[in-house]
């Protein structure tokens, strides 16, 4: 067994010990598909990552934008800001299996990796909604700041963060009691928020101040601000680096997690938005809204090396790989 293979198996074993029966099914497995929300086409496309071709398209009216995957990645959950719905897609048969009205302007979405609860940020409702996918009912609502957009959940499933765009703040929510326990002021108009592997720090992309706020989740304070390109949107982590999509600069900013120093800027398509790293960290995939592309970026060579044409207005804001 190679050292990498061994490390991977050990990591998987540790994950299984911690998570018990609900360990992430994808840890160590290669990703095969991307589910791409094409907002202007009112659809979700399925891209085969081996051939980089859109092989299926599922009609989802209501301007689909946000997306998250169930812990086993057998369901994709999609928000429709204009339809006010949470839409569940069975990823194996590529069909919509249920939908639920969750409130006004649902956009950001994340899944609790332990409980499987689905969290939706209602942009116009200034609230985070918790949905139980088993009963397909809203179980909790909590008020946050204005225009919540991105959501992130810690790996242990205890804490939820929302990026409250118009409040220039990140809300901290206790998942068990579903109460808001704090707020951290960040840069101007945070949109995407992500928690680094290990769960100690959160990174918020500030669309208007063109930077990323680094938040220590222990002390609940901003410990650093990293300059990135124009109109940053989403953040992903791979190979020891953070990758940030810069919508107006057609690029990814890459900086090191160890010392937050810049590594490089990678040119991609027009209006890069949703970004996610593969489970093994070898690539990040980026939805380019302006050019209708899903691009693959190699995290070792730091170059965009493959692209797939997708339907109009891809955003894939959230987790979209399986």
């Amino acid at each position, binding site marked *: 067994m190679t050292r990498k293979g061994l490390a991977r198996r050990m990591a998987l074993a540790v994950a299984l010990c911690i998570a018990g029966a609900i360990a992430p099914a994808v840890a160590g497995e290669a990703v095969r598909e991307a589910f791409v929300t094409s*907002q*202007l086409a009112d659809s979700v496309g399925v891209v085969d990552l081996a051939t980089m071709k859109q092989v299926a398209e599922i009609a989802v009216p209501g*301007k689909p*934008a946000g997306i998250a995957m169930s812990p086993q990645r057998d369901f994709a959950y999609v928000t429709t*800001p*204009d339809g*006010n719905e949470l839409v569940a897609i069975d990823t194996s048969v590529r069909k919509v299996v249920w939908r639920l009205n969750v409130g*006004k*302007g649902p*956009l950001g979405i994340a899944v609790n990796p332990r409980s499987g609860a689905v969290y939706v940020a209602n*942009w*116009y409702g200034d609230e985070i909604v918790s949905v139980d996918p088993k009963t397909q009912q809203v179980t909790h609502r909590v008020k946050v700041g204005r*225009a919540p*957009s991105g959501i992130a959940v810690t790996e242990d499933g205890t804490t939820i963060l929302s990026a409250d765009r*118009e409040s220039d703040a990140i809300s901290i929510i206790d998942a068990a009691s579903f109460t808001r326990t704090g707020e951290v002021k960040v840069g101007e*108009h945070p949109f995407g928020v992500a928690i680094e592997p290990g769960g100690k720090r959160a990174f918020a992309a500030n669309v*208007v101040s*063109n930077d990323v706020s680094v938040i220590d989740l222990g002390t609940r304070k901003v410990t650093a601000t990293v300059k990135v390109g*124009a*109109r940053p949107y989403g953040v992903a982590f791979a190979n020891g680096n953070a990758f940030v999509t810069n919508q*107006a*600069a*057609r690029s990814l900013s890459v900086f090191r997690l160890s010392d937050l120093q810049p590594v490089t800027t990678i040119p991609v398509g*027009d*209006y890069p938005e949703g970004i996610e790293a593969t489970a093994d960290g070898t690539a990040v995939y980026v939805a380019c*809204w*302006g050019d209708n592309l899903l691009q693959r970026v190699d995290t070792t060579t730091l170059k965009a090396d493959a692209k797939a044409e997708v339907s*109009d*207005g891809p955003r894939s804001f959230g987790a979209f790989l399986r």
Partner: protein
Amino acid sequence: MNRIVIAALALAAALPMLANAHGPSRKKEVSTIEIDAPADKVWEVVGNYRDMGWHPQIAKTEADPGEYKKEVTKRKLTFKNGAIFTDTLTRYEPENKTIAFLTNDEDLKTLPVEGYSSTISVADEGGKSKVEWKGAFYRGYMNNDPPPELSDKAAIAAVTAFQKEGLEALKAKLEGGK
């Protein structure tokens, strides 16, 4: 009746606060035109961030002095109807004959949009030019159920007309001499 007046006043009072706010669904509109003039000549006009007078609606352009700097250089556009827009230069690539700018302040009565980004590029097509204007924008109302004049439909119609008018005037200006 009173309730409507109060609602209107409340909306007006809220507007300055909403200046940087927008809804969650961005739209796009791509307009193109063929111009019987060399690409270099067309680029000379549309690549000049200091003068957007080629668009019939723009009366005056006041840009920051000095070298063009992406995300730094800004300008104020005064429309013929008196409306003021400001924008920031987001791309300037003479080698690709591509310029892009993004609005910071808009006048909703003139164009019912927020965060309107324009990317204009000129391509050589056998001695003639093809100009493409890619618009990306949000409607000018950041809540559910917008009034008709601030809807997605109104925003798309206004941007489509604005870009078409600009490109047609550009064509007339560059082809006019012959």
